[in-house]
């Protein structure tokens, strides 16, 4: 059988495993389609209090890990296919599609995901990729904006992300974005909700530990949008933030809110140096 070696590898992992992360292969190498080599562990940027930053992929079980290693195993790629159709379909009052301006997505969007969120000089604000997509839809196409964390938005983000896979996340944190970045950092370390938990309490203080049966990651977002086995769809960064904050039993910020935009910038910058993986596969 083609994949029976999996069982053997798993058995070995179980034997060697420690109390934390007993069944994930933390040192496996992520190569997608046998050609895109991903950096899943690397030296932490100066502004992150770790020795090493790690992609969420390294915290998953081997069965989950392999789902991201081939684009025909990765269910997230179905939605990339859907977004290719959208890319070439005219919408809105101007009769334009994404392709009308940006032409070939593979060349025009290469490297884009790696540097978002970033400063938009004309607008005088920090913009996430989702904000930029909606700006195009509203102001260039005359189309309705997507709901911020909706399925079509996640699919379009995935299509754009694919064009940067394997490139290092390289989000600027100084210059005009510094104020937003500081605000994001403050949110990251603020305890919210009845459980009084900050992002840092789990993803900085306790990553690599088990939270019940779940292997806690560093909360990196280089793999977003991510296909989760839990809800079998592509999940946006802000959708995930909302889920996390809700689980602290807090009233959450809204997807697309200034708070989550700032938090996305800060959290993205904590992954500077990891590869863009989206659409990744997580539990």
């Amino acid at each position, binding site marked *: *059988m*083609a*994949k*029976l070696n*999996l*069982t053997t590898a*798993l058995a070995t992992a*179980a034997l060697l495993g420690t109390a934390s992360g007993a*069944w994930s292969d933390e040192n496996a190498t992520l190569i997608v389609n046998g050609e895109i080599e991903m950096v899943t562990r690397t030296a932490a940027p100066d502004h992150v209090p770790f020795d090493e930053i790690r992609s969420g992929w390294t915290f*998953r*079980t081997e*069965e*989950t890990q*392999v*789902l991201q290693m081939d684009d025909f195993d990765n269910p997230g790629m179905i939605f990339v296919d859907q977004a290719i159709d959208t890319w070439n379909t005219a919408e809105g009052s101007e009769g334009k599609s994404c392709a009308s301006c940006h032409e070939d997505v593979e060349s025009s969007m290469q490297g884009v995901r790696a540097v978002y969120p970033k400063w938009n000089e004309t607008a005088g604000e920090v913009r996430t990729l989702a904000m930029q997509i909606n700006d195009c839809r509203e102001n260039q196409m005359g189309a309705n904006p997507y709901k911020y964390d909706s399925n079509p938005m996640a699919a379009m983000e995935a299509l754009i992300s694919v064009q940067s896979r394997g490139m290092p996340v390289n989000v600027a944190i100084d210059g005009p974005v510094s104020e937003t970045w500081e605000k994001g950092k403050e949110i990251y370390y603020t305890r919210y909700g009845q459980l009084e938990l900050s992002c840092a309490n789990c993803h900085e203080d306790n990553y690599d530990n*088990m*939270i*019940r*049966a*779940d292997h*806690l990651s560093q909360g990196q977002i280089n793999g977003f949008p991510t296909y*989760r*086995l*839990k*809800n*079998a769809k592509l999940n946006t960064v802000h959708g*995930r933030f909302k*889920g*996390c904050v*809700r*689980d602290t039993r807090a009233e959450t910020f809204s997807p697309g809110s200034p708070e989550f935009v700032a938090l996305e910038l800060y959290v993205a910058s904590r992954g500077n140096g990891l590869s863009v993986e989206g659409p990744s596969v997580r*539990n």
Partner: protein
Amino acid sequence: MIFTRRETLAIGAGAAASAFLPMQVNAAADDVIAAFTGGAEVADGGVDLNAPEIAENGNTVPIEVGADGATAIMLIATGNPTPGVATFHFGKLAGAHVAATRIRLAGTQDVVAIAQMADGSFKRASANVKVTIGGCGG
């Protein structure tokens, strides 16, 4: 290894669940198997069933089955509300008689594969899959 009170409770609950659940549902699973085999005897072995020992999420569990010389393989989740999962019928141009898919498991349970062989006999394999509960459910 030292268990906290909470861990001990969890282990006890898990053991209780694995003891009771299959008993509740095995009748339904037996019916599905009987419908497939026509009540014929099913021999253990001769079927490869590759399932994770621990599934990270019960919503999407990768499963692979295979049996040389099988004409069909039925996959059953004995602890699901309805035990049937899938039946693979291999045609004239099937390569190795192996198939993989992803399945939903309602909880920790035995997954069973029954292969119908070309000579009309039946073989089986089973695997226990532990379905875990995520951290905070986010």
